[in-house]
């Protein structure tokens, strides 16, 4: 009898799809896992595929993800980080906390070539100036017009010392103006209503009507078109080109479930994951989706030229560029 019970228990044990150890913990940012974000649907799809338990841990943003991992050091609570971006890669690599992804990069659909063996993209968008059509009849049509255009039409920008979009604009001006970047900042300064600590504050001021322009993403108008049925806000296409934000994921070197992390990275480039990106994360998918994008996405600006700076350059020069910005903007 005892033997029978033991055998039955063992059989039952081996049949259980989920064992206690089979949990994948993913550290990401809050708007990803929110009710309205892509997290819940992705969790369901991945759990059905892997027969495991996916657990999200969410912090403020990409920078907060990296910082929490650095604080945790050798004993991370997560197996995978999802939501770093291209401008954080150099620093993330230098931390030595991440392992190679081992995935094929063939399925990637990015405006730039991608060869990184550690950080795997899952979505992207170009930085862009978004403007309010009701407030601005004649917006600047180029970065030069924005910089030179004088006082009419103010813009809210983000601080490069505290936010990734702020860093994006820093890179943008540097890529277009090079050595003359400080002059460009001195001119642009007249147009700047204020500099906010992060994207949220800038976008809140913009939608409250404080300024007719804000530094955001090419995909921002999609939210207003689809969720609010409003075409009031549109992004501006600048012929000088736009810098890119590419969001990436990476496996932790000290992951407790490395095999599941690999499985998730492969799943990340499949339609089960990518389908959720456009209308849940309001970014462009980095790989094929099962359906074409919603028609509203055709109204979005697709920059003809992408400004691509090597992550190493950005990391090496960030401090110098920020100082230059500080000087020009405080004068």
């Amino acid at each position, binding site marked *: 009898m005892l033997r029978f019970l033991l055998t039955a228990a063992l059989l039952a044990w081996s049949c259980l799809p989920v064992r206690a150890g089979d949990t994948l913990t993913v550290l990401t940012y809050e708007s990803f896992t929110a009710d309205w974000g892509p997290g819940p649907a992705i969790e369901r799809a991945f759990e059905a595929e892997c027969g495991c338990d996916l657990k999200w841990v969410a912090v403020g943003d990409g920078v907060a993800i990296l910082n929490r991992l650095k*604080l945790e050091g050798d004993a991370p609570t997560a197996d995978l980080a999802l939501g770093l971006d291209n401008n954080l890669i150099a620093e993330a690599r230098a931390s030595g906390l991440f392992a190679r992804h081992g995935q094929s990069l063939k399925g990637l659909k990015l405006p730039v070539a991608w060869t990184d063996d550690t950080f795997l993209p899952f979505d992207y968008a170009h930085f862009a100036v978004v403007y309010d059509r009701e407030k601005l009849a004649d917006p600047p049509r180029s970065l030069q017009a924005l910089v030179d255009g004088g006082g009419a039409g103010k813009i809210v920008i983000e601080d490069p010392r505290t936010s990734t979009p702020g860093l994006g604009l820093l890179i943008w001006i540097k890529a277009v103006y090079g050595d003359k970047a400080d002059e460009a900042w001195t001119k642009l300064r007249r147009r700047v209503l204020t500099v906010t600590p992060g994207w949220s504050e800038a976008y809140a001021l913009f939608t409250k009507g404080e300024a007719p322009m804000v530094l955001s993403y090419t995909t921002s108008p999609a939210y207003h078109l689809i969720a609010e049925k409003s075409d009031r806000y549109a992004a501006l296409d600048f012929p000088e080109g736009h810098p890119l934000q590419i969001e990436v994921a990476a496996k932790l070197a000290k992951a407790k479930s490395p095999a599941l992390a690999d499985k998730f990275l492969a799943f990340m480039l499949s339609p089960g994951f990518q389908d959720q990106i456009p209308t849940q994360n309001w970014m462009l998918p980095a790989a094929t989706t099962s359906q074409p994008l919603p028609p509203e996405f055709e109204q979005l600006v697709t920059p003809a030229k992408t400004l691509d700076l090597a992550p190493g350059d950005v990391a090496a020069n960030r401090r110098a560029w920020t100082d230059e910005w500080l000087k020009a903007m*405080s004068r």
Partner: protein
Amino acid sequence: MRQRRRLIGAVALVLLIGLLGAPLLALLTAGLDGREVAAGAYLWDVTRFTLLQAGLSAALSVGLAVPVALALAHRPDLPGRRLLLRLFAMPMALPALVGVTGIVGIYGQAGLLSELAGWFELTRFPSIYGLAGIVLAHVFYNLPLATLLLLARLEATPVETWRIAVALGLGARDILRFIDLPAIREVLPRILSLVFMLAVASFTIVLTLGGGPGATTLEVAIYQALRFDFDPGLAARLAILQVAVSLLVAFAAGRSAVPMLVEAGTGKGRGRPQAGSRWRDGAIIGLAAVFVLGPLAAVVAGGLSRSLPSLLVDPLVMRALATSLVIGIAAACLGLIAAYALALAAAAGPARFYDVVSLVTLVVPSVVIAAGWYLLAHRLGVAGWATAPLVVLLNVLMAIPYAASVLIPAVRALAERQDRLAVSLGLTGWRRFRLIDGPLLKRQMALAFGLAGLVSLGDLGIIAIFGGDGLVTLPLLLYQRLGSYRTGDADALALVLMALTLALAWMLPRSVAGDPTP
């Protein structure tokens, strides 16, 4: 008795310093230093601007609060006074960004005043972005707080003093000169220090309304060091610099403190003879009300959106509401006990020392403390279960300055009045508290509790570091919605938060809220 009080104070002090010092030490010794060092000239500029804006903010907030508190003290029967004072408690719990949107809704480029100016075809309303906007927002946040604290002191003047004043036939001018102004001067340095330190530690307001990096405070540099540069050691060193600078100023302000001339502590806001101009008081109160309620009304108007009804039944919102309430009430209870311990020690020992120490937590950035404790908890392997208790404990730290601002002067005044009586009756310890101090301090305790609860309700710094594992408060939820285009939801959540604040403000003592009870 003094020795026992000193012992209680020493225990509270050690706990306070431990809770603040341990995370700073952890960050300093974590070996996580970045490669870069902040430039000296930059730091100097930043420190200068920090002191400038904080000094202006403190002087204006408190300077303007004095006539408002006096006018309110003169008019205990003013209709709507109780409601007004409760509304005055609301800015305390409003996350900075919500306050900023309220300010901008009135004074901004697309604000009410700008629109009115356009209506009358006047010239454009001047831009507030810059030092003006920063100071304006700080006055909006701190004038009501300073008013509440000043009024609590003005109403503590005992009935006996008023009887003597009436017997001597003192007029309005004499009452001001011999009773009210000495009372104000007694608490003024402390309230100035409190507001000064709050302004020193201001971050979102400074950056968002500052107009550009010319307006950068030390707190911004600390945040930058902790976030983008990820140099916890530098962040800790800058935090220590900020503490040192603020302490210098607070001690300097404390030196100007005037020894108490008027008995205080047990009055109930009753017995004041009618004096002064009814119209002038009414006008002052009216102006202050418009100034504080304007931005609050803008937030309310923004929050009455279509998403409000659906948010009110959203389980996520309900859960965040409950989490906020639990953290707020727990932090307020413990903060009250800690502040009372410090107040007992201050009554027995070097009062100014405890005065200043109880304010220190205001200028140790909560993000730095939280990051340090996160590091410690993780290294000690207790991160799992320690998260929620740590969040509460760190909120207690933040609440202490507010509760202590009410309790330190009250307990000191009480000690002077009651010590001899207690000794002659042989009452000590818990029995003394239950029979003498407790009943007499009921109102101050309630005010301290309310302020402590309100400030934890609005916390974002601590929860931003520790949150993520399902621990979501209302301000954090608000920020999350804002971070994913849902501005309408965020506005509605601000309204929910305000309603919660008002509910808590309703628990403030009745007599401070203008309803003298017998």
